[in-house]
C-alpha cells in the first residue's frame, strides 16, 4: 500500500516538475508547481510528518503560490514571446551539468545505501502537531521568535522595494 502511494506521488511530482520547466506559459508553470508541492506534501505524510504536510499545503501551495500567481497576472508576462528559445548549445551544457550533479548525488548515495537505518517506529508519535509544538515552544523558542522578526523584516523590505517609484516621485515634489 505504501509503495503504491509512493510511486504514484513520486511520478506525479517528477512529471509536474518537468512540465513546470518545459511549459512556455508562466501561469501553467505556476499551477504545475502547485501540483508538485501537493504531491510532495503527500510524501511527507508517508514519512509520518503530518504537521509539515499540512504546513506545506497551507504555506507553499496556498500562500506563496497565490503570491506568485498575483505577480504573474500583475506583470502580464503571458503576452511575451516564448522565453525559452535561444541557442541550443546552452541547453546541452545545462543538461550535461544537471546530469553530472545528479550522478554525483547518486554516487554519494550509493556509497552509504546499505548502512542506512529503517524507518523508525518512534516516528508514529514524533511527527504529530503535539510533538512538534512541544519541541518548538521549548527547545527552539529563541529561533521561533527570530523567525517572527525575519518575517516582519521581509514584509517591510518587500514594501520598500516594490514601492520604490511611488516614494521617489513623492520626494521630488
Amino acid at each position, binding site marked *: 500500500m505504501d509503495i503504491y502511494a509512493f510511486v504514484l506521488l513520486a511520478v506525479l511530482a517528477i512529471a509536474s516538475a518537468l512540465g513546470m520547466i518545459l511549459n512556455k506559459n508562466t501561469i501553467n*508553470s505556476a499551477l504545475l*508547481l502547485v501540483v508538485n508541492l501537493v504531491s510532495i506534501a503527500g510524501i511527507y505524510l508517508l514519512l509520518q510528518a503530518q504537521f509539515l504536510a499540512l504546513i506545506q499545503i497551507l504555506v507553499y501551495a496556498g500562500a506563496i503560490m497565490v503570491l*506568485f500567481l498575483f505577480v504573474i497576472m500583475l506583470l502580464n508576462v503571458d503576452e511575451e514571446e516564448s522565453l525559452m528559445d535561444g541557442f541550443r548549445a546552452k541547453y546541452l551544457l545545462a543538461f550535461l551539468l*544537471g546530469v553530472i550533479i545528479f550522478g554525483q548525488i547518486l554516487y554519494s548515495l550509493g556509497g552509504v545505501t546499505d548502512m542506512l537505518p529503517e524507518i523508525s517506529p518512534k516516528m508514529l508519535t*514524533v511527527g504529530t502537531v503535539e510533538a512538534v509544538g512541544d519541541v518548538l515552544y521549548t527547545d527552539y523558542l529563541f*529561533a521561533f521568535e527570530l523567525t517572527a522578526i525575519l518575517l516582519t523584516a521581509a514584509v517591510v523590505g518587500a514594501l520598500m*522595494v516594490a514601492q520604490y517609484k511611488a516614494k521617489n516621485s513623492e520626494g521630488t515634489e
Partner: protein
Amino acid sequence: MIGIDWYLALSAILFTIGLIGVLIRRNAIVIFMCVELMLNAVNLSLLTFSAYHGDIAGQILVFFSLAVAAAEAVVGLAIIIAIFRNNLSVDITKVNLLRW
C-alpha cells in the same frame, strides 16, 4: 516498507530538475519557481533523514526553512516587480546593468 534510498533518489531527481530549470529558462519568475522546487527537494531529504532516525530536529529545521522560504519569496517577488518597473520585462538577459 519503502527504503530510505528511494526518498533520497526522488529528492535528487527533483533537485536536478530545478537546477536544469534555473539554467535553461530566461523568465525570472520561472527561475524563481525552480529555486522553490530545489528548496523543496532539500526539505524532502531532511524529512527523510528525520523519519528514519526517529529524531524530530529535522522536522523543526524544515519548519524554519519553510518560514525562510516564505520571506525569501516575498522579497524576491518584490525585486522582480522592481526590475519589471525599470525594464518592462522579466527576461533576465535584458537585466544587464551590472554585467561586465
